């Protein structure tokens, strides 16, 4: 065995886990080779020193930090709905991105269906776009105003009806009250 072969075996030799013929071969080589012997002695000293060191302990607050940052692995929607095996298969289909993509595609097809007017370049003319937006805004404003007026009218009517209702029983009671009031 040459020095390169010994170097591979030396790690286990200094740990005391090398056995049999390999161990004897290393022992014989070390007795004859000063370079490898020095390497083995240094390595063994380091191993011995490291065995005397105290283990590193993680600070207790670290656990809380980790659990706070990454609270738990939630099961996916697919797993919750369809169980583990089927859920794993269907998971890509139920991804929000895919669902949104499908929705947009469906909307596009709906817009392109026959009967709906196709967009033309002239539709993108800024003057046209502005006029259309202005028309729409004024229509919305007028509609809002009209709704407000209607609401006022409805409120007036309701108030008047309530008044009439309150007055009606009073008038109905009045004839009864009159003879009583006429009593001696």
């Amino acid at each position, binding site marked *: 065995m040459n020095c390169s072969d010994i*170097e*591979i*075996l*030396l*790690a*286990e*030799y*200094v*740990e*005391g*886990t*090398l*056995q049999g013929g390999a161990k004897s071969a290393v022992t014989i080589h*070390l007795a004859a080779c000063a370079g490898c*012997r*020095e*390497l*083995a*002695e*240094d*390595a*063994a*000293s*380091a*191993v*011995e*020193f*490291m*065995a*005397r*060191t*105290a*283990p*590193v*302990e*993680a*600070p207790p607050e*670290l*656990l809380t*930090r*980790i*659990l706070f*940052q*990454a*609270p*738990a*692995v*939630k*099961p996916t929607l697919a*797993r*919750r709905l369809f169980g*583990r095996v089927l859920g794993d298969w269907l998971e890509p289909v139920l991804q929000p991105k895919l669902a949104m993509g499908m929705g947009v595609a469906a909307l596009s097809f709906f817009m392109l269906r026959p009967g709906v007017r196709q967009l033309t370049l002239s539709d993108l003319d800024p003057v046209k776009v502005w006029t259309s937006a202005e028309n729409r805004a004024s229509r919305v404003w007028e509609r809002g105003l009209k709704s407000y007026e209607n609401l006022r009218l409805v409120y007036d009517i309701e108030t008047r009806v309530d008044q009439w209702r309150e007055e009606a029983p009073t008038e109905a009671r009045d004839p009864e009250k009159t003879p009583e009031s006429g009593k001696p």
Partner: protein
Amino acid sequence: MAAIAAVAQVTTPGQTAAWAGERRRTVLDQDLQLIERCLGGEEAAWEDLVKIHTRRVYAICYRFTSSEQEAQDLTQEVFLRVFRSLKSFRAGEGSFTVWLGRLSRNLLIDHYRRSKMQRSTDSIEEQLPTIEETQAMSARTDGMLAGREASETLQGALKKLSPELRETVILRDLEELEYREIAQVLNVPEGTVKSRLNRGRAELARVLRKQKVAI
């Protein structure tokens, strides 16, 4: 040779290997069950998984960076990545420990590259505390160190190793991963792991001796 004999006496190969193998199998099964429960949405399982592996991830990060704050941030980042990519873990492609180790290692290497660029632009005033710390450390290393003090001295020495040697020594001697697992984490052959380990250990002994530490 005395040191080699001393180390060899400490371990009893057959029993230790059998016991370690049994323990690893149990941990492996436990990890797989926890991951399965995590993916099923059990919050308690995720907590257990984090509790079991936080110490090791933090220790690797701390040994590599020598900074408690950086180690905490990196550990947090590792678990955030685990959280996001737990679904991509495949039990057939290696143990969870290996997967986690690889994830931590990639993050540490990225961090090392970033901080290396930062260090090269640091002025001597910013580096001064580190130099003073090293001098103070070498002034109190006459006797045989052990425990926390030895741990601090080791930390100073590990910083002097190249990242390749450092990570190998940390994974094997401090975190006790198997050679096969280290090879998977570092994505190199087992022979390379053993060779790096020898060089790392020897280099570490030389650094400690330079700091007048009795080893």
